[in-house]
């Protein structure tokens, strides 16, 4: 019986200590409880020695446990004002830069492991097709300058000399294509000579070629995205005969999107035999591509050369041979270029969203020039880390949905980049304004100053304090003639005694 009463009493005391321990901050609670429980055991042993009655023994332990509440209150109050290493770390400029660096690294890794994104950043057009060239009457690298008439193609194709082989022609047009019985769509179609794919070394399986000829339809190759968008990736669409304008085409193959890297984004290619090409109107303008023999490039190390062909009237004209790699590289829409355009636009719009002031924290004080330089270094480091994060994030988002057309992807990329630039640049300015110009830590301990009434001469404002005692940040609630923007009030060195930095206990 005595034992059971003792055990009940002990449990009561331990429960009281546990309840008191709830007041103690969690990171200190375990040690606090361990000390009090240990001491309780010794108190109980001593009370057994001193008192003969159970009630007297219990009273001593109970009085002891009541003291635990006072101790717990003290621990709770003290810890609230204690130097908190974790909170201080979150305010640290180093942590800010580390987090941004981590984010930039994650974005870089994600971009590296997404082939589409990697390809768009580091394009390698025709890296295995160095011998493909454009034939043009101009040596300009712009696509528009390279276009020639179908008539020119017909006159050149047999006069290119021994160094050129497989001359092909294609014209890019928008044609109404009847997808189904009651559905038509405008598609970008390349009306091409049937040797185009061979000339470009694009190897894809083409089915039912003979059947298409027998049925009087031209072979039609769909791009993968067009096949997905208009035919729902239906494998049985191979063999479909569709109307392409006034022509008939039979779907004979699907071309991966990345295989076509020439001017214009194509939805389909209609391959026409020589007879149909000859029937093309002389007003048709397109591009002439050809295969140059490898020896030609050793003869012309600059990759571009020209030869002459005779005209019907006896005169001659020059034909420029332009490397396709150079043309594609010159005309490719670089995502970084689009990003810089978006960035400039965002910078123009940025003042609408946030003030571009850094809060006067850069004003001269009696600090050394290195201390004065530090906020600027920190600010520009943030910007330098933010820009690649936004650029890569926009690219990743634009390539998440592979069914998007290139134009839609580019539009999405620009939109994400624009919003991202606005948001992150606004954050960079706001964050900088909330940091102490001396130690670059985020300000804390906000207090409201002024009267609550909103009469003109009693403007309210907020004051933030640097936890290291470098100064106060004064932010008026509404701008007045004497306080239109936030301002800094530096503490004199006599304040230092109030801001002793205490390491975590």
């Amino acid at each position, binding site marked *: 019986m005595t034992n059971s009463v003792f055990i009940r009493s002990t449990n009561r005391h331990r429960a009281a200590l546990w309840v008191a321990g709830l007041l103690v901050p969690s990171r200190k609670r375990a040690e606090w409880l361990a*000390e009090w429980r240990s*001491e309780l055991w010794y108190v109980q042993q001593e009370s057994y020695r001193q008192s003969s009655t159970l009630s007297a023994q219990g009273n001593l332990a109970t009085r002891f446990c009541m*003291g*635990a509440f*006072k*101790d717990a209150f*003290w621990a709770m109050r*003290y810890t609230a004002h204690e130097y908190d290493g974790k909170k201080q770390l979150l305010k640290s400029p180093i942590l800010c830069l580390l987090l941004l660096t981590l984010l930039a690294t994650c974005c870089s890794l994600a971009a590296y492991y997404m082939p589409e994104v990697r390809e768009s950043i580091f394009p390698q057009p025709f890296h295995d097709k160095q011998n493909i060239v454009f034939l043009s009457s101009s040596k300009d690298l712009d696509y528009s300058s390279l276009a020639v008439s179908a008539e020119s193609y017909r006159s050149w194709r047999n006069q290119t000399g021994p160094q050129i082989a497989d001359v092909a022609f294609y014209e890019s047009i928008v044609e109404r294509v009847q997808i189904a019985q009651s559905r038509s769509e405008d598609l970008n179609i390349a009306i091409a000579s049937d040797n185009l794919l061979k000339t470009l070394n694009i190897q894809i399986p083409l089915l039912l070629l003979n059947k298409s000829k027998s049925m009087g339809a031209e072979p039609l190759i769909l791009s993968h995205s067009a096949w997905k968008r208009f035919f729902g990736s239906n494998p049985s669409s191979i063999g479909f005969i569709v109307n392409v304008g006034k022509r008939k085409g039979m779907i004979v193959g699907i071309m991966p999107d990345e295989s076509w890297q020439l001017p214009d984004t194509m939805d389909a290619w209609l391959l026409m035999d020589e007879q149909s090409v000859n029937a093309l109107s002389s007003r048709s303008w397109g591009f002439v591509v050809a295969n140059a023999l490898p020896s030609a490039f050793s003869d012309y190390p600059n990759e571009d050369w020209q030869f002459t062909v005779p005209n019907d009237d006896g005169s001659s004209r020059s034909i420029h041979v332009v490397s396709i790699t150079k043309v594609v590289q010159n005309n490719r829409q670089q995502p970084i270029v689009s990003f810089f355009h978006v960035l400039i636009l965002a910078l123009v719009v940025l003042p609408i969203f946030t003030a571009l002031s850094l809060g006067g924290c850069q004003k001269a004080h009696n600090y050394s020039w290195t201390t004065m330089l530090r906020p600027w270094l920190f600010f520009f480091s943030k910007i330098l880390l933010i820009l690649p994060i936004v650029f890569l994030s926009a690219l990743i988002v634009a390539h998440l949905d592979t069914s998007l057309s290139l134009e839609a992807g580019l539009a999405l990329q620009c939109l994400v980049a624009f919003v991202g630039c606005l948001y992150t640049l606004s954050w960079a300015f706001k964050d900088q304004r909330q940091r102490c110009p001396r130690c670059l830590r985020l300000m804390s301990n906000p207090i409201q100053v002024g009267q609550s009434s909103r009469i003109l001469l009693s403007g309210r404002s907020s004051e933030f304090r640097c936890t290291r005692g470098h100064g106060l940040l004064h932010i008026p609630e509404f701008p007045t003639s004497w306080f239109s923007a936030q301002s800094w009030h530096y503490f004199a060195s006599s304040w230092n005694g109030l801001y002793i930095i205490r390491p975590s206990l």
Partner: protein
Amino acid sequence: MAVEAKLSHTAAMILQAVHAGYVYGFSIMEVTGLPSGTVYPAMRRLERDDLIVSRWEQQAIADAELRPARKYYKITRTGKATLDAAHNRYPLLVRLVPAKEMESA
């Protein structure tokens, strides 16, 4: 401490007790007659101000003696200097808390 701490009489008595060899909370309560609700918070303040330090007894020693491990407190060099200054302010402190006699083996 950059500035020498000025102790209250209670805190000085507790610091004197630690210096005198009463190295855990309950023994300090016994020798000073102060309640637990005064002694333990005061010891935490003294520890916060680096006047005393604490360490846990080795668990193996406590286990061998079939009792829980205790948390022991020890006066620091700063604490000794502060206590010396407190002796000037409270001359009877040494008499109130006499040095602990050696425990019999």
